């Protein structure tokens, strides 16, 4: 299928542990989808595997506009049009957000002038102007980091945006702001997959389709009624309706190294 992100039978594991278990998912350009699931269901792993993070054993298929994603390097996937907003964007001292965006835009064939003007425009729109000349993600609040991620997507204009836990750790005003940004991103040539643990952001964004992910698979897909069911009874209600047995409640392994300034600190 063209004009879509298409995932078929995607399985992935790390350290001998299976996380994704034959996942199927199609997100067409022009649509906003929400992927919901409890902690440990594999939502972030799906993002990482699609983006191309090293360290996962991966099988199955994933394509963007018919191009095989899994055969490509991280940066090739990005230039093809896949862009993830990170749950924990890493801090990079000494590299300014502006310089980073100029380089990334140049990789997409923009001239420096075009890049700069787009950066200015989008920074004004997402209230990021004062962060442009600061070190990347350094000393940003949780909400500012999410905004920075969305700003980057706006500058780089992907075909498919993966928004990993775009609302986690945010107060309600920040959630509303992020939701507004997601609604503003809607465009005929852009697909959005919004990954979230909580349904509260769905009060402010209306996705075209909602998917529920449990134990590494999409167990149900639907419209607004799924969000209502979750709101009322949580994942437990969905499990019961589908006859799914609760397995290990062990939370997902968090990539703790995202937090550290440097993993080699001797203190």
């Amino acid at each position, binding site marked *: 299928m063209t004009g879509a992100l298409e995932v078929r039978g995607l399985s992935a594991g790390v350290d001998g542990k299976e996380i994704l278990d034959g996942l199927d998912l199609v997100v067409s350009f022009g649509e906003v989808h929400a992927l919901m699931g409890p902690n440990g269901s594999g939502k972030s792993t799906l993002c990482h595997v699609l*983006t*191309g*993070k*090293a360290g996962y054993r991966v099988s199955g298929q994933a394509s963007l506009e018919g191009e095989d994603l899994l055969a490509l*390097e*991280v*940066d090739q996937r*990005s*230039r093809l049009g896949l*862009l*993830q907003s*990170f749950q924990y*964007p*890493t801090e*990079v*001292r*000494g*590299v300014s957000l502006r*310089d*980073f965006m100029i*380089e*990334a835009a140049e*990789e*997409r064939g923009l001239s420096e002038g075009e890049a700069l003007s787009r950066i200015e425009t989008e920074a004004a729109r997402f209230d990021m102007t004062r962060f442009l000349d600061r*070190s990347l993600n350094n000393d940003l609040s949780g909400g500012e980091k999410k905004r920075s991620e969305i700003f*980057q997507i706006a500058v*780089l204009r992907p075909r498919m945006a993966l928004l990993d836990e775009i609302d986690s750790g945010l107060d309600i005003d920040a959630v509303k702001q992020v939701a507004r940004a997601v609604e503003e991103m809607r465009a005929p040539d852009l697909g959005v997959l919004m990954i979230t643990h909580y349904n509260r952001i769905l009060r402010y964004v209306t996705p075209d389709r909602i998917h529920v992910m449990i134990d590494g698979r999409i167990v149900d897909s639907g419209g607004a009624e799924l969000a209502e069911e979750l709101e009322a009874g949580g994942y437990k209600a969905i499990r019961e309706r589908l006859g799914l047995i609760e397995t290990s409640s062990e939370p997902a392994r968090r990539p703790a*190294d*995202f937090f550290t300034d*440097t*993993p*080699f*600190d*001797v*203190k």
Partner: protein
Amino acid sequence: MTAFDQQYLSQITTSTTPAWRRSQMEGAYRVFTALDEPTGAEEDWRYVEFDHTFAELEPVAQAGAPLESGPFVASLPERSGHVLIVDGQVLEHHSDVATVLRLNDLDADPGFPALVPVDHNKLTAAHAAFSTDGVSVEVTPGTVMDTPLVVEVQGSIPGTVSFPHLRVRVGEDAEASVLVAYRSADGARLLMVPKIDLEVGDGGRLRFLSVQGIDHAATSVVHQRATLGRDSTSRIGEIGLGGRLGRLDLGVSLVGDGSSSEVVGLYFGEGDQTLDYRMVIDHQGRSTTSDVFLKGAVEDDAQSVFTGLLRIEKDAARTSTFETNRNLVLSENAKAHSVPNLEILCNDVICGHASSVGPLESEHLYYLRSRGLTLERAERLLIRGFFQEVIDRLPIGGLEEPVSQEVFRRFITAQAEGRVA
């Protein structure tokens, strides 16, 4: 071949040399003969191979022709004076602001304490015994040097050892700005043993930057000491690029209450270079603050060494001190040693250190690449960013561009030739 012996010593102590100076040199000579060249077994020479012996080196008879200034000095927009020391001999010295005196005048002033002990090692003893020339920069109380005095220290004659000597005295409430640029002749295997004494009076401010850009065939062992008076400030910068062995042995003594010291530096080793930093920050007065911030990279077979001791003396209450040393190891055979240390004899202090050794961080590379930057481009951006933090803090402005370019050039050349992993 002239040897560093008694006969040579007699030759350089002339009839006009004051008696006290002669006896100082003879005393130092005895220490010199009693000590051996560093072998690497000594604690403060660990990891380092010092591959010169005085037996195979000659003193300088006559200074060679000055070398070109090089890109760093050339890029400085303004200067307030110029000192040129070639092969240990002072060829030029003038300043619009400070009083610049030549050695023989130093001889007349035994009041200035030797900040590096003569018996620190064989090289400091050699310096005390054989150094016969040098420059003293005096900034009188209340005087402010807006633009830097440029001190070029050069080595030009293969097979020689030279003993350049510079001291800077910043008077009360005065401000000095000094740039020292080290260079040596292309391909010349020689040894430079500069001695730098920095004395900052009460309320004085010193900005001092050295750019060590000697040829990769040469060795430089700099002994640099600073002593700080009450409420004085010293900002010392170091850019380490050159030398088969480039070593800086730095001591900062915060003697006066309320004094503060900042040491920032960057180094980038390539080929088979060793860049070696030994620092002791000694807090003696009360309410003193210090910060050491050093970042370096090594590629090919190069290695770097950082040992940094923060010593807080018994009476140094309300000391605040920190040191940071970050190292990027870019090739499989490159090595970085980083050994921060604390010696705390007083309990009313805030102190800490951070040290790291490793490759470019994979999380950083992943993040940058996820935005479409190729691996090579992401690496280049990270290298720039890594050093930018130091470049932003250099105590003397105007050198940002050539420093950044040189560091970057080393990396991209190695990257293009596949020498970095």
